[in-house]
């Protein structure tokens, strides 16, 4: 184990970790938007919207994220979508995690007792009002943990964009493995940073989850 080397290269890894953090935050934000829209579509009264929502989830969850990134980044220019690697990474990963979040959000909304809907409708609230004032506040608490699982997976999932040459943590580790021939040291260094990111995110999620408990 060459600790001197680790001490020498770790600033570059931290710099790369910043890119990983940016990728994570942006793609998770996009994923939440896609997930919210997807869940709304899947629960809507319109059968066309329901079909679109179901197709989105099925196609995205049925194919590898790596292929989706490749289609967007390498295939995009053929259909007039010109993105740089970072943009393609954010959009591709966001759309991908959005499909998983669609199911998480939908599951949480369905899990709210049906009697709640019936009662508020009986009390004269509209469909939208019921959703907004009664169902969503309760569903929001239920979805924090499972969304946390999605987010955790996504932080590790950002490693995929190394394959479209975004200089993030995994790409950097890979490059240093190539130039130093010290794979274990580089793996350990990158791995520790990933675990720290996941650990901190996990703390944030538990905090949110504790705060959201109904007192």
């Amino acid at each position, binding site marked *: 184990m060459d600790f001197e080397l680790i001490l020498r290269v770790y600033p570059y890894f931290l710099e790369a970790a910043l890119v990983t953090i940016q990728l994570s935050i942006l793609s998770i934000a996009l994923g939440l938007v896609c997930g919210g829209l997807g869940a709304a579509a899947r629960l809507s009264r319109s059968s066309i919207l329901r079909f679109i929502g179901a197709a989105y989830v099925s196609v995205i969850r049925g194919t*590898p994220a*790596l292929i989706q990134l490749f289609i967007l980044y390498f295939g995009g220019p053929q259909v007039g979508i010109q993105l740089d690697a970072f943009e393609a990474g954010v959009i591709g990963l966001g759309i991908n995690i959005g499909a998983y979040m669609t199911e998480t959000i939908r599951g949480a909304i369905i899990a709210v007792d049906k009697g709640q809907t019936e009662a508020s409708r009986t009390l004269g609230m509209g469909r939208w009002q019921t959703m907004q004032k009664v169902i969503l506040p309760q569903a929001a608490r239920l979805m924090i943990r499972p969304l946390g699982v999605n987010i955790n997976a996504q932080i590790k999932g950002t*490693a995929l964009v190394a394959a479209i040459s975004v200089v993030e943590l995994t790409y950097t580790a890979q490059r240093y493995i190539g130039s130093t021939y010290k*794979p*274990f040291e580089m793996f350990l260094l990158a791995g520790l940073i990933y675990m720290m990111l996941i*650990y901190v995110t996990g703390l944030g999620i538990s905090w949110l989850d504790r705060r959201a408990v109904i007192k």
Partner: protein
Amino acid sequence: MGLDFSVVPGYLDALFLGALWTIAITLSAAVLSFFGGIGLAVIALYAPLVIRLPFRLFAWLFMGTPLLLQLFLIYFGLIEIGVDLPAFVAGVIGLGLHYAVYNSDIIQAGILAVDKGQHEGARTLGLSKVQTIRKIVVPQAVNTVLPPIGNNMIALLKDSALVSVIGVAELTLTSQLAISKTFRPFEFYLAAAAFYYVINLGLEFGLRRIERRIQISR
């Protein structure tokens, strides 16, 4: 540049072969992850602390880092200590161990969910501790945890695309080779996605049948 799907049929044979490799690597890794998961779960629950700790460290490391990084480590890293694995084997080991850790978590929960009376009953009947775990507790646990493990196998199928980066000529790498000859990324990646989707449907169908059969037998 526009789209021209007429180039795809010429490479269908190659893509089919790639798809077979994808299926082969997925199934091998799935088997490894299933039995590895059982092994890890039993160690985590029953082994003495000295054995348990290094395994927990291993699990923690594998859960906290990206699969892609682990594949690089296994394929390029092990060469440094003199273990030169073929890319296919490295891919199976990487995918298999990664998902073994996830399966082990599920199986642990399943084992804990098996009624304690089963354990006590088996011990009372004179089965040894190992026999009890192997013949009574684990089989019941595996039944209950099959659906979530099935989900992991579907995730594994999609993650098998990652082994293209260490040079296993499966579906993704095959489509990349076709692209390098035709310069048509959109068409071929879409074709690869279609293949994955169909394999995925097949896998889901198979898993559902296995689940139903087990439910009937209970």
